[in-house]
């Protein structure tokens, strides 16, 4: 049973437009959420995170929104650039119990010039 779900395997966006990547989770004990970005033949790299006490966190072109009641989070990239083309993984953890990161399956973003 997947605790972190990314239901869109892929997303294609035009350069300059907004990219919205979605993630749902089932475990109400999760209280810390992260997004990782992965290029081919490289390991994932941390992108942005959000604590469950917040509903929004922004870092430059990247913003993560958290809707706890819906157990849903999303990553917005504005404006999208061709270099953003990668696989994006949503991850969650129970920080209070020092639990481990649980990853979703990833969404492959393609930003077309």
């Amino acid at each position: 049973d997947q605790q972190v779900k990314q239901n869109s395997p892929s997303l294609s966006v035009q350069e300059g437009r907004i990219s919205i990547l979605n993630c749902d989770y089932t475990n109400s004990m999760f209280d810390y959420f992260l997004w990782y970005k992965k290029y081919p033949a490289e390991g994932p790299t941390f992108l942005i995170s959000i604590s469950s006490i917040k509903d929004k966190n922004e870092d430059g072109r990247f913003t993560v929104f958290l809707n706890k009641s819906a157990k849903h989070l999303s990553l917005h990239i504005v404006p999208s650039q061709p270099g953003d083309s990668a696989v994006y993984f949503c991850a969650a953890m129970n920080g209070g119990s020092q639990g481990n990161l649980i990853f979703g399956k990833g969404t492959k973003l393609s930003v077309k010039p």
Partner: protein
Amino acid sequence: EAGVVQSPRYKIIEKKQPVAFWCNPISGHNTLYWYRQNLGQGPELLIRYENEEAVDDSQLPKDRFSAERLKGVDSTLKIQPAELGDSAVYLCASSPGQGSGELFFGEGSRLTVL
């Protein structure tokens, strides 16, 4: 500052053969993780170390997988004997301490079992 170093990058073996992967974490990072990533899936935790102690190995298939982190620095993950289903990318990650979730990953070791 050097990142997480893994070797080998690629390994092709026949089933029933042994294989080992090595990881050197970022200097000063006490927590070390081994993840496995199957094709089309997200990384899944195999084992987590705090210094030299394995604090979570619940997902490690102990009949064929073993890991060690002597002296609390670099680590080795071994599979013996390998099976076809073990084909995956094995990722090592480290973090300065438990709790932040911000892991630093190596480039991974891609294993193909024929």
